[in-house]
């Protein structure tokens, strides 16, 4: 069964069947449930929100109450096949350290990011002179959980500096669809990017 969310379908394509998936900030466990159904994965979620944890339990998804800002020391090296993190990296105190940890634990990681470089954010800042507030980033600056927003260029530069290999990427537009413009000029027209990354030399 294909999922109505294109980003999740794209993620599922990158997850090998019958492998272990660790979802950082798994929310209500819907993605893990989808991956388990589509790819027969053995999933585990990390989550801190109480309501989300209970929603996972209701679905029968294994979930650990865990604060991602406390690191991932509890997971041993290369103990997972894929780490997934959807729309959560920008909420972490030190995204760079978490990336390092993710690729220590997993053979690959799949990360989705909102693109702060999207033209609408640039225009918002240019004309209104205020921090952008949009459908995808709805919080005012003082109350946003998104404390480390970045543009796609920023993210790719960080990966380069950390010697992280970009294996694959998808750029979706602000309406979460694949479009010509978002492929052509992602840093301007992509609303959400999905990256598959690794530290292994060959995958």
């Amino acid at each position, binding site marked *: 069964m294909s999922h109505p969310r294109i980003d999740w379908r794209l993620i599922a394509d990158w997850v090998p069947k019958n492998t*272990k998936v660790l979802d950082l900030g798994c929310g209500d466990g819907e993605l893990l449930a989808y991956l388990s159904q589509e790819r027969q994965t*053995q999933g*585990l979620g990390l989550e*801190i*929100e*109480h309501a989300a*944890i*209970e929603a*996972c*339990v*209701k*679905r*029968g998804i*294994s*979930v*650990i*109450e865990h604060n991602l800002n406390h690191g991932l020391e*509890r*997971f*041993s090296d290369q*103990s997972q096949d894929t780490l997934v993190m959807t729309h959560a990296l920008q*909420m972490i105190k030190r995204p760079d350290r978490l990336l390092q940890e993710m690729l220590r634990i997993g053979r690959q990681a799949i990360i989705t990011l909102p693109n702060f470089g999207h033209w609408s954010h640039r225009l918002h800042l240019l004309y209104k002179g205020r921090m952008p507030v949009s459908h995808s980033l709805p919080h005012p600056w003082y109350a946003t*959980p998104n404390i480390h927003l970045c543009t796609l260029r920023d993210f790719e530069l960080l990966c380069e500096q950390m010697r992280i290999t970009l294996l694959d990427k998808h750029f979706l537009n602000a309406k979460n669809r694949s479009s010509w413009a978002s492929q052509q000029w992602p840093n301007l027209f992509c609303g959400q990017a999905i990256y598959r990354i690794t530290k292994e030399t060959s995958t």
Partner: protein
Amino acid sequence: MAAAEPIPQPDDSLPPTAKSVGAVKSELMHFNGPLRLTSGTGLPEYDLMVETYGQLNPQKTNAILICHALTGNHHAAGYYQDSTERPGWWDEFIGPGKPIDTDQFFVVSLNNLGGCSGSSGPLSINPLTGKAYGPTFPMVTVTDWVNTQAQLADRLGIECWAAVIGGSLGGMQTLEWSIRYPDRLKHAVIIASAPKLSPQNIAFNEVARQCILRDPEFKEGHYLEHQAYPKDGLTQARMLGHITYLSNAGMNTKFGRRTSTQYLDYRLSPEFEVERYLHHQGERFCGRFDANTYLLMTKALDYFDPAAQFQNDLSACVEQAKANFLVLAFSSDWRFSPDRSVELVDALITAGKGVTYACIESDAGHDAFLLPIPRYVNLLSSYLKVVSKDIL
């Protein structure tokens, strides 16, 4: 990533449809031995006092075993006809529409071997001597309990439990079940427990034991023959225990520095409410518990360490488990702190087992596992609803 939620209060957590299991009866089941025990000794035969709630389905796949903690017993839910006693010790969790829903599950609860609520223990008559065992009742371990619980399952025709559930020392039995009989349970629910006691925990147990052993009325355990009873020692042991079952914050809320009289007495009699609470708990306990059993049960706690046989590698130890795990801890529990549950959770993750973990906010200390705290009740209910859907 929100800030911590306010501490939940134990109110309106149960659905309005939740009911009591009603009047219950316990049943004494006899088992022919000989039973080999971990200590190298054995018993020629033994009895287990058992209560069940709900109906076993024809496939016998909907059974849940409840493992009790240090001073618990088989009477976990419901009440006895014509008795003014309080309902069972986990009554708020077991019943129709409750988290352990007796409309779905057949719930089995027993008094562990060595107990003093009807199962064979120091108060029972030794068939070889015709006298009460007293201090000669052999030392029992968590492994021995689980082995006898497995014999009880055989007797009831239960090949595989839908879930084994236990808090504190009961959680240790649940963990032991998952390791020793991996094919005989689908789910293991381990609440406010630990994979082994810390030295601090053993220390508390030893002080409690010394209170009893040093009571002149203890008579080396033969108090029954001397028409004596180490009431003071047992009271002190229980008072000490109760301090460790509460948290400092919880005591502040519950007692503060309130006194029973308006003016201080400047005498040594208990004046503060916390003192009177401990005295009350200690005395109430003496009326229902046996000193030799208390010694046995605390030793069983101290000895529990399943990873010891695996070079202290807990993840290697749980490797053989096949159950899915739910591990719950309570924020202010310092007797079995959340860190101890996390130790177990990490070992289960490393071993690649299915495990869910949550730490429930509560200022009730270790005792929280007995209380209907809304988040706790909801998580357990949700988990067991999924378990009940899996039942064939």
